[in-house]
């Protein structure tokens, strides 16, 4: 009998890991696929911030693949994903997360990969009732249908509660050996992890991407509103993950680094943005986005000074570097925290 081959959507979390293991146990060859939308929580964000330095800087999808002994194909979908985010047929979840369209898109990409690579079916770590939007009994068939995967899409963790799929019908896998997990309780997943000796797996709160995060979503919407269009590049959405975002007026926004890690990250954008930092005292780098006036730049310098070591000094010298212009030095009093209006914080 030829060995059947499945491609698994790997997020880096426990559920897809268990789904793969369940199918491997049935003698199926599995390879993983992981999509990088630009909004993923993975990797880099840990690398940027100092406070996250103690966490392992591993990429969880790679880690999962290694634990399972499977190959992992990471696919850059940054451009294609824009249409999913900007025009979701099924709308958004609680924040800017278009989960149902997103899942449909990823399964569709996995189906194309499956066809191109001569694989037999697709597996995901979805569990009925686990997520309010994409993992419901009534939305699961929508994903199968709209992705074109139809009955080649198998959800091993809850297969016993779902209509029979092709791999089950054909006897490639035995349904009785698959899961019957439902709901948000994680007991069964944890028991399976224990059984297979999986430890140290990632437990992302909320979801696999920044779009489920309320404050991230707010920054994204704010960026679109002030630009007057919803276009974005990878750099734009990366920068929304970093720093304090402060918008004192409609003309401009500051991105102020919160620690040394963010400062060195923001320094990488020096050529593209007007930026500033105190020279008389230690402190963060600030990027300026928008069309600030001279007065705005002075205001920005005072805010930048407030977040540095000179916050209690009478005067702080701040050097401003406009894009493509001569840098200027300003000696200004740091803005007292009480004068930075709460509503300026995006």
């Amino acid at each position: 009998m030829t060995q059947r081959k499945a491609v698994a959507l790997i997020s880096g979390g426990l559920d897809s890991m268990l789904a793969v293991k369940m199918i491997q146990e049935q003698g199926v060859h599995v390879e993983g696929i992981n999509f990088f939308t630009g909004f993923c929580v993975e990797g880099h964000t840990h690398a940027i911030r100092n406070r996250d330095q103690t966490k392992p800087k591993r990429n969880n999808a790679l880690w999962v693949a290694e634990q399972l002994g499977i190959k992992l194909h990471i696919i850059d979908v940054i451009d294609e994903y824009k249409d999913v985010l900007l025009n979701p047929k099924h709308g958004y979840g609680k924040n800017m997360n278009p989960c149902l369209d997103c899942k449909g898109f990823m399964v569709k990409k996995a189906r194309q990969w499956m066809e191109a690579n001569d694989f037999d079916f697709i597996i995901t770590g979805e569990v009925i009732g686990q997520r309010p939007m994409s993992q419901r009994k009534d939305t699961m068939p929508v994903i199968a249908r709209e992705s074109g995967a139809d009955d080649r899409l198998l959800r091993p963790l809850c297969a016993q509660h779902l209509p029979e799929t092709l791999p089950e019908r054909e006897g490639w896998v035995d349904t009785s050996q698959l899961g019957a997990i439902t709901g948000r309780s994680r007991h069964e997943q944890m028991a399976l992890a224990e059984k297979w000796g999986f430890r140290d797996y990632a437990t992302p709160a909320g979801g696999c991407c920044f779009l489920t995060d309320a404050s991230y979503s707010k920054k994204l919407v704010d960026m679109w509103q002030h630009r007057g269009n919803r276009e974005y590049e990878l750099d734009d959405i990366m920068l929304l993950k970093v720093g304090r975002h402060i918008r004192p007026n409609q003309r401009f926004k500051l991105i102020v680094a919160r620690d040394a890690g963010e400062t060195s990250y923001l320094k990488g954008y020096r050529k593209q943005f007007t930026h500033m930092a105190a020279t008389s005292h230690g402190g963060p780098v600030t990027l300026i986005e928008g069309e600030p006036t001279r007065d705005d730049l002075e205001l920005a310098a005072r805010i930048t000074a407030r977040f540095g070591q000179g916050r209690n000094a009478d005067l702080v010298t701040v050097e401003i570097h406009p894009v493509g212009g001569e840098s200027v030095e300003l000696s200004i009093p740091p803005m007292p925290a009480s004068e930075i209006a709460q509503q300026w914080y995006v």
Partner: protein
Amino acid sequence: MKYQLDATNLLCPMPVIRTQNRVAELAEGDILEVRCTDPGVLHDIPAWCRINGHEVLDQHRDDASIIITVKVHGD
């Protein structure tokens, strides 16, 4: 053959994706030298190589970059 790939100023997982896509075009025995700036690659590229059966011959820093040398193995 020896090849080079510039993945500087990219954050993970982009350097891994670039490495993966480049390796896919190379032949068994070829060497790919990847230049990066995100220290995350020190973890991710070797992990990617282990998973996919390629070999890391060397990794070192010079100035502001990290250079990882990968030897391509077949399936």
